């Protein structure tokens, strides 16, 4: 091998020998001579040794050959800098690498996409109609993606769109792998998802594992006792005589009356937590758990970025079927028909329910490994106590939901500083350490804010959720201040009260508010659409929409809002005052919100050493933006809110007096020198 090598080498040499004499070499020689006139012949030096006597007296010159060079280059004045420079380079490689490792080591975990920006919840039937049938659909949502990006939204949340026979399309799914024809086809869904991802947005969807529609194939097979499907639902023997059923126990459906229904085909009763068209799945059955897992995988494979799991507290019921306790013990048992008349100790949040929810998380984790593809999990815990809601955050070593949706603001019916404050603190104080809060003002199941509080509160509530720590969640229309429609002439039979907050999105002044070109829409358009619509507010600098955009921009750009400490200062029946601050940033945001009648807030009473005047960064009243206020007497109108900005070195969360009034999810500090976040504080 080595010989072979040598042979080849020599061939190479001789070949080169043949062709060395081309124009370039000569050209070079000439240049060489011009550069170094008076130099000794420098073409080829074949005599050995740097200490060649004839060269002894030569002085160094540009272009000198190595024989001359070697006489001088070992001098200290060249050798030392040479060595120094070499080792300096080696050292800087090491230092730079070490610096990289050090910075990586002290970097706090960065915010994931579901933490980084607001979520936007869309009720698909009411967002935008693309096919003139009066019902919104998936292609309509796709048409409006540009609008959603102008809101600086990060995540789109589309509520249930599965194939369903129930008219409100929230619950009662006939096929978890199909899109309801009203909303479009699976291809429409795939296109929508691709378009959402193209814009750098994420999509989460609803999933209701608790029950199916009674038209679902599983139920049809189950009532015939077909194979493994026999126990897919909760069946029990019950007496059925002359059209009246004596149920196995006193359990009630959420909508009232017994939760057991007699099925003629199977001659047994089945259990339903909601409507009788919505039989509960039997989650003690492992086949059912496997089916649900496969459905989750089906949508994750499609590329969906996360789920909102609905009604999970109903997943399991006690197997012993004991009667639940009455709230009013003296009430005659036969007259107990309303859901709130019982304590639901045996039908909600049973032992093992969280294990099932955690198994959903594990399934989603398998799909979260790809970079940037973490799959979000939220749980809907409607009407739960705070303690029980917090259980969905999981335990220190067992991950569960990323967050349970915080619906407490949407349950408030009257605005007041104290009640708003209580919602904030009860969440922040009970939330497990290191977890991430979230805030929603409304949703499909509650009345719209404008109808609960009044129009004056649209801006202040948006300001509230964008300045609290955590993910703000906006229900479509909240950014322009849409209100409930009036409950007249609704030709939908299903629970009218829940429809009022689902009226079509108001896009512009044209007929049907730009929602649909059909002659008739599934719900009437709110009559205020001439003033409350996207098109009008887009151009009005004082509109709710403009403020919403400014708030979401501030939220996206200010570390103070996305990662900072939250310290509450004071609250009373009118106002709530809190700060957002971050180590390493010497600016502080001070948020003053007034939920009551006009009031005067004195900040100097709350914190010492604050400047006499502060700059208004944002105000619900756009006229004040950029001006200054006196901190000893800030006059606030009804529903007015201010984000004040001032410089401060000594941050509140370092002071003992405020220590237990400050919260942060992931501790981080900012270094302005390196423009990085670090955890050395």
């Amino acid at each position, binding site marked *: *091998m*080595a010989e072979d*090598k040598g042979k080849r*080498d020599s*061939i190479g040499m001789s*070949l*080169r*020998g043949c062709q*060395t004499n*081309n124009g*370039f070499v000569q050209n*070079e020689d000439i*240049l060489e001579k*011009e*550069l*170094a006139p008076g130099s000794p012949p420098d073409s*080829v*030096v*074949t*005599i*050995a*040794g*740097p200490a060649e006597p004839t060269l002894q007296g030569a002085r*160094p010159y*540009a272009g000198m*050959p*190595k024989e001359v*060079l*070697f006489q*001088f*280059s070992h001098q200290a004045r*060249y050798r030392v*800098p*040479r060595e120094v*420079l070499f080792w300096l*380079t*080696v050292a*800087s*490689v090491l230092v*730079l*690498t070490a*610096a*990289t490792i050090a*910075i*990586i080591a002290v*970097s706090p*975990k*960065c*915010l*994931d996409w579901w933490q*980084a920006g607001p979520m936007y919840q869309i009720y698909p039937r009411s967002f935008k109609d693309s096919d003139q049938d009066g019902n919104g659909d998936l292609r309509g949502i796709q048409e409006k993606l540009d609008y959603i990006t102008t809101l600086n939204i990060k995540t789109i949340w589309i509520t249930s769109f599965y194939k369903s026979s129930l008219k409100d399309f929230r619950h009662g799914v006939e096929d978890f792998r199909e899109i309801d024809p009203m909303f479009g086809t699976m291809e429409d869904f*795939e296109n929508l998802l691709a378009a959402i991802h193209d814009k750098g947005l994420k999509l989460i969807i609803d999933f209701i594992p608790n029950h199916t529609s009674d038209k679902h194939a599983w139920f049809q097979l189950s009532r015939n006792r077909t194979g493994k499907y026999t126990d897919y639902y909760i069946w029990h023997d019950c007496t059925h005589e002359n059209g009246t059923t004596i149920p196995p126990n006193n359990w009630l459906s959420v909508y009232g009356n017994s939760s057991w229904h007699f099925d003629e085909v199977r001659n047994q009763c089945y259990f339903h937590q909601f409507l009788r068209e919505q039989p509960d799945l039997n989650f003690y059955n492992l086949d059912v758990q496997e089916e649900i897992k496969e459905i989750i995988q089906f949508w994750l494979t499609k590329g969906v970025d996360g789920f909102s799991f609905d009604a999970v507290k109903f997943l399991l019921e006690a197997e012993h079927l004991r009667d639940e306790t009455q709230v009013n013990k003296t009430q005659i048992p036969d007259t107990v028909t309303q859901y709130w008349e019982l304590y639901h100790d045996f039908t909600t949040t049973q032992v093992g329910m969280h294990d099932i929810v955690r198994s959903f998380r594990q399934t989603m984790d398998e799909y979260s*490994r*790809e*970079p*940037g593809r*973490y799959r979000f999990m939220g749980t809907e815990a409607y009407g739960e106590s705070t303690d029980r809601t917090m259980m969905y955050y999981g335990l220190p070593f067992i991950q569960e939901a990323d967050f349970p949706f915080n619906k407490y603001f949407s349950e408030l019916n009257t605005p007041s500083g104290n009640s708003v404050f209580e919602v904030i603190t009860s969440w922040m104080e009970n939330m497990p350490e290191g977890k991430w809060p979230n805030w929603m003002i409304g949703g499909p199941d509650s009345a719209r804010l404008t109808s609960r509080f009044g129009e004056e509160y649209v801006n202040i509530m948006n300001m509230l959720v964008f300045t609290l720590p955590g993910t703000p969640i906006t229900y479509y229309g909240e950014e322009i201040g849409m209100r409930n429609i009036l409950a007249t002439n609704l030709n939908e039979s299903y629970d009218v009260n829940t429809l009022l907050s689902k009226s079509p999105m108001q896009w512009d002044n044209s007929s049907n508010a730009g929602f649909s070109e059909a002659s008739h829409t599934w719900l009437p358009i709110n009559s205020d659409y001439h003033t409350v619509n996207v098109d009008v507010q887009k151009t009005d600098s004082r509109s709710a929409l403009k403020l919403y955009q400014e708030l979401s921009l501030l939220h996206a750009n200010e570390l103070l809002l996305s990662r900072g400490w939250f310290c509450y200062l004071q609250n009373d029946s009118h106002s709530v005052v809190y700060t957002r601050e971050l180590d390493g940033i010497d600016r502080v945001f001070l948020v003053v919100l007034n939920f009551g009648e006009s009031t005067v807030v004195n900040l100097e009473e709350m914190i010492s050493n604050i400047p006499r005047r502060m700059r208004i960064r944002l105000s619900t009243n756009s006229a004040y933006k950029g001006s200054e206020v006196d901190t000893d007497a800030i006059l606030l109108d009804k529903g007015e809110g201010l984000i004040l900005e001032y410089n401060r070195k000594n941050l509140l969360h370092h002071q003992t007096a405020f220590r237990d009034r400050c919260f942060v999810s992931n501790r981080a500090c900012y270094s302005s020198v390196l*423009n*990085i*976040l670090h955890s050395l504080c």
Partner: protein
Amino acid sequence: MEETSLRNRREDERSVQSIQSKEPKTTSLQKEVGLLSGICIIVGTIIGSGIFISPKSVLSNTEAVGPCLIIWAACGVLATLGALCFAELGTMITKSGGEYPYLMEAFGPIPAYLFSWTSLFVIKPTSFAIICLSFSEYVCTPFYSGCKPPEVVVKCLAAAAILLITTVNSLSVRLGSYVQNVFTAAKLVIVAIIIISGLVLLAQGNTRNFENSFEGTQLSVGAISLAFYNGLWAYDGWNQLNYITEELRNPFRNLPLAIIIGIPLVTGCYILMNVAYFTVMTPTELLQSQAVAVTFGDRVLYPASWVVPLFVAFSTIGAANGTCFTAGRLVYVAGREGHMLKVLSYISVKRLTPAPAIIFYGIIATIYIIPGDINSLVNYFSFAAWLFYGLTILGLVVMRFTKKDLERPIKVPIFIPILVTLISVFLVVAPIVSQPALEYLYCVLFILSGLIFYFLFVHYKFGWAQKISRPVTMHLQMLMEVVPPEETPE
């Protein structure tokens, strides 16, 4: 690899001898690069990180699997044609420095000077910097799941990579090409892993994405030409070997052979890798993946999916080393011709590397990573690269008539250079026409501004310039222990 190590050992002995026993020895670049190393350099620099991270530029224009694969293949053919022209040039004029000596021979010093001016100050250092930055970003990203790594981290590591590569390459040619071989091997390993698992998946029947693979094809001329434009970029680097012709052993045989083997090899890899990706990803998923090979690894290789990012990082730094290796030679040749400071063409006495050229290149690249974003700069200057390719190949056609008597060991049919020239014209004009921007004008102005320096320092050679450059050269020589290259004493 065995070949390399053998040669290395011998070289080791030689240099040890030359230092210790002070035996006479020519100070010039040694003929270090054999056929295998030559192929490694071609494959190693063409397959950068692009095919692993975003092989989507073609697909996004064709929107269907079938035409996408066809265009990848067609681009490979075009790149081979271009490289064949360079093979003729390389064997006709056996000088290192890529386009530079060919432009010199065909059109005289001014185009050659402008080429070296643009390449040395913008094209080569920025691409070196960009490759190091993307290497660094690639290494840091796993530590910042969910967000982008902070700039300071990326830049620190990129600077470390540049310094390390520069140091290695100025210490020893042997070490530089050894590094190159190791990383190219790593790259080929991961390419092989992806291709083989793709073929296995294909055999298992994952052909869903290949059914109706021509459905939804965009047939507009604009889309196809854009797809070609982007596809050809993936093959950029096919002329790398021409930068080191002088160091090739037996260039008449090895240069064309390396090209003929190397580029079709790359083409095959590209097509099969695309096929592999399509076995587990739909076109939409591929377009939206942030790092396609990593997505592939997660879906196919789990729980060993960590190998993909690791090897892609190797591959990227290998590409960086490759550009450093070749571009250093351009500085060296330009310095030798007097188009740059003479000292840049000098060779380290003890190490026999073009150390000043490589250090110069490293310094320029380090400067480029300091400001905010150089991606846009690179994008606008990319048209200049095709301008010079086109000019060079036009030079080939011209020399067929002006220099009939030059020996041409390889002679390609005349229609090939003409075709490639036309394609280059298209590739220069297409982006300017489709998206005219003032920046292109600035690029042209920058290129032409080289003329000022040319006339001041090269053409007229003002005395005061000499007065400054001479002592600088002398001191640098002694500092770095470098001397002008000597002729082989045979």
